């Protein structure tokens, strides 16, 4: 048994196939379900009748044009797009599509008694890898792993081939709700179908016919001055509840075409639309459809021998007749659907094709241009201290007592590639580690022991490259204090004690006492030293150990998250109100950008194709955003609706990898491949 889901621009359908016969799967007790989603107040995305019912009262929280968003060109690829509900309430596009697919999938599961059957998803023939990637990502979010992707035109081809044992070239004209897709297929004798030509109009479809119905109604009402009030009512109805207006128009369109006339009814409005009048008003649309198909017949590389018209809008007799006439004129055989004689013709052409297609499927790949992958809880750092390095995480259990300093506690590298925690080779055995740090400028690891001896290591070497003797006596640090943070750049090493003393060693040795103990340190490229405390970030000149500037944080952790991009001399703060960026390359913190609509509970900076990129985890929507660190413009996103929230984000700042550490020590890996512009 296999299932197919046809995610349409206005309606989504599902079907099940077993031993050569197919049956439609009822979604909400209907043959098709609306492809619109409604954002509930509790944050859930509803699809199907639930969405439509809720949208009656709050139309602004509904989004209907999901497929069209994948269709249309945009500077942001679909997997990274967001959909707006009620102006600036945003949700990832893929999550919205997932709600629609998930709704249909639940109906399939109900039909199969909970048995997960292989699923085939279909898409417009013109979709490229990037567009298909959005469909795959949505399916994954819906908890479905589709067994295959198939273009709608090819599905039609498979069906025609099975129903009529047809080989040769076939033109498929798919007239959808908002798009027209034309494809010429080669049905090869050897169980294969090749797409020879594709063309289409992304701005022409059945919805345009609905619009003409509404225009006819408006024209009828404006002809008679006595109808002025009705005209106002009609205009307001169209503006306030466009989806209902469009649905009524669609009903009128179908009925008028089939029975000769239909009445558009809403409240006091009742306008009769006659078939001839409707056909006249939509003749230009039919002309355009015919023009595209003619171009495919005459101008394409392969002249088709047969033609078939599919898609919801193809049921309109004017479209069908005009295309049949064109086929006749061009000497192309026009095949009709209803002659197929196959069982289950109530299901869509696409679903029928899916049933006829031989298995195994494959060959239809999908890859986002700038893919972001989230591997949930694949590493473990336990309760140990961890620092991100280019290969993975370096973890070490901090030793706070002086006696432990000679203990044999290893510091280990948990490689991202092996994904096996804690069994990689021994990294180094320092004499006790109180704090770990990473120097991205030289790709070195730095450790400071409780006796304040510091070592700089080449990662993977078991002897320190450089070491600094115990030094704790000369500072003001008390024996009872412990090391809480460390940073290094080149020859300079800095650490912070729990009693708020920051010590810097290198060519000179300096120290200073801050008001609050910092819990994180980083050098900038200048180099300055940044010390992050509970409520402030201090900019320090490491040569003189003077405080240059202080940035007050909007609130204490965990309400405020901070990220430091040392090499770019940028500092980021995030609260439940906004995300802000400051430059610190000129002795002071200067605001660079601010994004009011974004909130984040964890931040980290990665580097993608030599550009610093800020990763921000949004607790409210549960997603990771990737912002251009220098401008704050969003470049990518990763939906993490079903993944645990990170307690902390770690990144080495030189690769496109960030590590999300969760409460129990598991670590998820977030990878940015491909360039972010």
């Amino acid at each position, binding site marked *: 048994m296999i299932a197919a889901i046809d995610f349409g621009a206005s309606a989504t359908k599902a079907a099940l196939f077993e031993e050569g016969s197919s049956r439609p799967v009822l979604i909400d007790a209907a043959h098709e379900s609306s492809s619109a989603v409604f954002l509930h107040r509790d944050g859930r995305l509803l699809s199907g009748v639930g969405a439509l019912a809720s949208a009656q009262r709050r139309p602004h929280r509904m989004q209907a044009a999901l497929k*069209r968003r994948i269709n249309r060109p945009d*500077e942001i690829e679909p997997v990274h797009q967001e959909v707006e509900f009620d102006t600036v309430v*945003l949700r990832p596009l893929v999550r919205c599509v997932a709600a629609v697919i998930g709704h249909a999938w639940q109906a399939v599961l109900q039909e199969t008694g909970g048995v997960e059957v292989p699923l085939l998803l279909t898409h417009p023939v013109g979709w490229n890898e990037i567009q298909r990637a959005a469909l795959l990502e949505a399916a994954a979010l819906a908890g479905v792993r589709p067994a295959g992707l198939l273009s709608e035109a090819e599905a039609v081809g498979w069906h025609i081939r099975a129903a009529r044992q047809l080989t040769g070239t076939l033109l498929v004209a798919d007239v959808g709700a908002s798009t027209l897709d034309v494809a010429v297929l080669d049905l090869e004798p050897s169980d294969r179908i090749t797409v020879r030509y594709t063309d289409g109009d992304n701005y*022409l479809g059945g919805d*345009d016919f609905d619009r003409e119905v509404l225009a006819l109604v408006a024209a009828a009402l404006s002809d008679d001055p006595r109808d002025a009030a009705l005209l106002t009512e009609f205009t307001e109805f169209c*503006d306030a509840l466009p989806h209902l207006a469009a649905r009524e128009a669609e009903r009128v369109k179908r009925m008028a075409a089939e029975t000769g006339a239909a009445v558009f009814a809403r409240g006091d409005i009742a306008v009769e639309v006659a078939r001839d009048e409707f056909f006249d008003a939509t003749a230009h649309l039919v002309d355009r459809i015919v023009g595209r198909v003619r171009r495919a017949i005459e101008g394409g590389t392969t002249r088709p021998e047969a033609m078939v018209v599919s898609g919801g809008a193809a049921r309109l007799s004017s479209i069908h007749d005009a295309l049949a006439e064109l086929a006749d004129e061009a000497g192309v055989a026009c095949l009709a659907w209803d002659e197929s004689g196959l069982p289950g013709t109530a299901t869509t052409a696409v679903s029928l094709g899916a049933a006829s297609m031989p298995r195994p499927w494959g060959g239809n790949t999908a890859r986002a241009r700038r893919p972001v992958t989230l591997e949930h809880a694949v590493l473990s750092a336990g309760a140990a201290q961890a620092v991100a390095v280019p290969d993975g995480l370096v973890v070490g259990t901090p030793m706070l007592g002086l006696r432990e300093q000679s203990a044999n506690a290893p510091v280990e590298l948990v490689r991202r590639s092996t994904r096996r925690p804690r069994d990689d080779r021994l990294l180094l055995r320092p004499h006790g580690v109180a704090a770990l740090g990473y120097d991205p400028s030289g790709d070195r690891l730095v450790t400071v022991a409780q006796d304040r001896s510091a070592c700089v290591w080449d990662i993977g070497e078991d002897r320190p490259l450089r070491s600094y003797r115990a030094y704790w006596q000369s500072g003001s640090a008390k024996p009872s204090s412990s090391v809480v943070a460390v940073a290094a750049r080149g020859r300079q090493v800095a650490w912070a004690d729990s009693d708020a003393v920051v010590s810097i060693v290198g060519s000179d040795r300096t120290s200073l006492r801050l008001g609050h103990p910092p819990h994180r340190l980083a050098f900038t490229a200048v180099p300055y030293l940044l010390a992050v405390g509970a409520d402030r970030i201090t900019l320090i000149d490491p040569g003189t150990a003077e405080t240059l500037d202080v940035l007050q944080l909007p609130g204490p952790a965990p309400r405020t998250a901070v990220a430091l991009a040392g090499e770019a001399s940028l500092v980021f703060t995030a609260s439940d109100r906004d995300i802000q960026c400051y430059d610190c390359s000129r002795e002071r913190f200067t605001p660079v950008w601010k994004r009011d609509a974004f909130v984040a509970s964890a931040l980290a900076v990665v580097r993608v194709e030599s550009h610093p990129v800020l990763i921000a985890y949004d607790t409210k929507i549960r997603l990771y955003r990737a912002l251009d660190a220098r401008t704050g413009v969003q470049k990518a996103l990763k939906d993490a609706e079903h993944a645990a929230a990170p307690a902390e984000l770690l990144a080495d700042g030189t690769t496109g990898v960030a590590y999300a550490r969760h409460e129990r020590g598991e670590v998820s890996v977030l990878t940015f491949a491909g360039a972010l512009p």
Partner: protein
Amino acid sequence: MIAGPGPASEALAVLAEELAVREDLRGEGFLADVAAQCRQPLRVMVAGYVSSGKSTLVNALLGRELAGVNRRETTAEVTWYRHPDLAGQPPLGGGHRAVETGFPLADRLVLIDSPGLNTDSGSQQATLNLLSASHEEAGTAAALVYLVVGEPAAGDVERLADFIALGSGDLGNVVLVGGKAETVSETSIKDSVERRETVEESAAKTERRLLIRKACVRSVAVSQQLAMVARCGRVRQEHVDLVRVIVGDPELRRFAENGWAQLGLVWSARGRAAEALAPLRALIPSLGWLVSELPAAGELDVASLSACCERVSRLSRLEQVLAELADDADLLTVTAATERLRRWVDQRGRLRAAKVREQLDRMWSGEEFEAFPRRRAALLLSTSLLADIPVADRDWAIALLRGKPYEIPEPLTAVIQRWRRRTGSGTRGVLAADVAQTVVTAAVRQLTG
């Protein structure tokens, strides 16, 4: 050196040159012109019926008399007017010639004057080739200025629809010009202002018919004749003296508004010689159109009369529209040239076509092309696609899509809410809905950024 349309067009020029060296494609001439198109200013074609005043309009835009006029069917060849720096590159083969000349928009446009459409001579074929999707040359011009005089004729709408269908959808690259604005109902309407409106209306009427076909055009009414008077410096002191006499006498002025015939009667009644008016009559055959705009007698001189002709001709409005299109030369040129290349390569065999199409698709996903959906939406917004939307909302949206600052007196969220209501495709059609959605997306991105 004249700058090309932009980085996207440059990318296509490079691709065309790469294809030109491939021996199996055999299309050096065609590919050289595609590359040239992508490195030259926006190519704008002027088309219309014989005697609709195409050449006069071209001459007015050029500011000199280069195109032949005043003979039936004067333009037998497609003539390209371009900046002198662009010399050397031959235009398309037979039926085309090039004239290098400087003109006000020379560094932004290449003007293509075409033979009239309703002719039996066969020269109209060259024009049709440039307009119709079935010909290889179509797409050579990326924008079209289409002249209509009075009521648009039967073929106009179809021909414009053909040109619009050349690309992958509407771009707003068609300017409908209501030409010979001064001749329209000269006798029936008294007030010259009213007369101009009528001409605009006639252009708008065609526009509305096209709009119903979902094709978006802009319309401008122009008096080519007055434009020529102003642009070619034809006003002399003798004309000024005559006009001064007319505006100085209230009765003469009033009759002048009704045209030369009535003015002639009063003029003779005053005992003046009828032939004295001849120079002015030759200069401005449609005086009535100008009268209400004329300055007072005291302020009249050669410059002010010339300026008045310029203003009333509305040529600068057309130039402004063309300059707006030239701002988007990169988008318009690369779209037209890509379609050209696609259709051409389809005739070169299945495998070659597939490969080149793939190259084109890959090129179009490059970052030079990323802003195009917004720019296209902005272009469509300045046509009458969404004519029912308040001007303030439209101007704001255009500025937003073009990345220009624009002050609004209300919160951004309120404007976005209004635009969101316009994104239903069932009530406005797919294209209008798509434009509205592009506006909403851009606004939300701005708000969150």
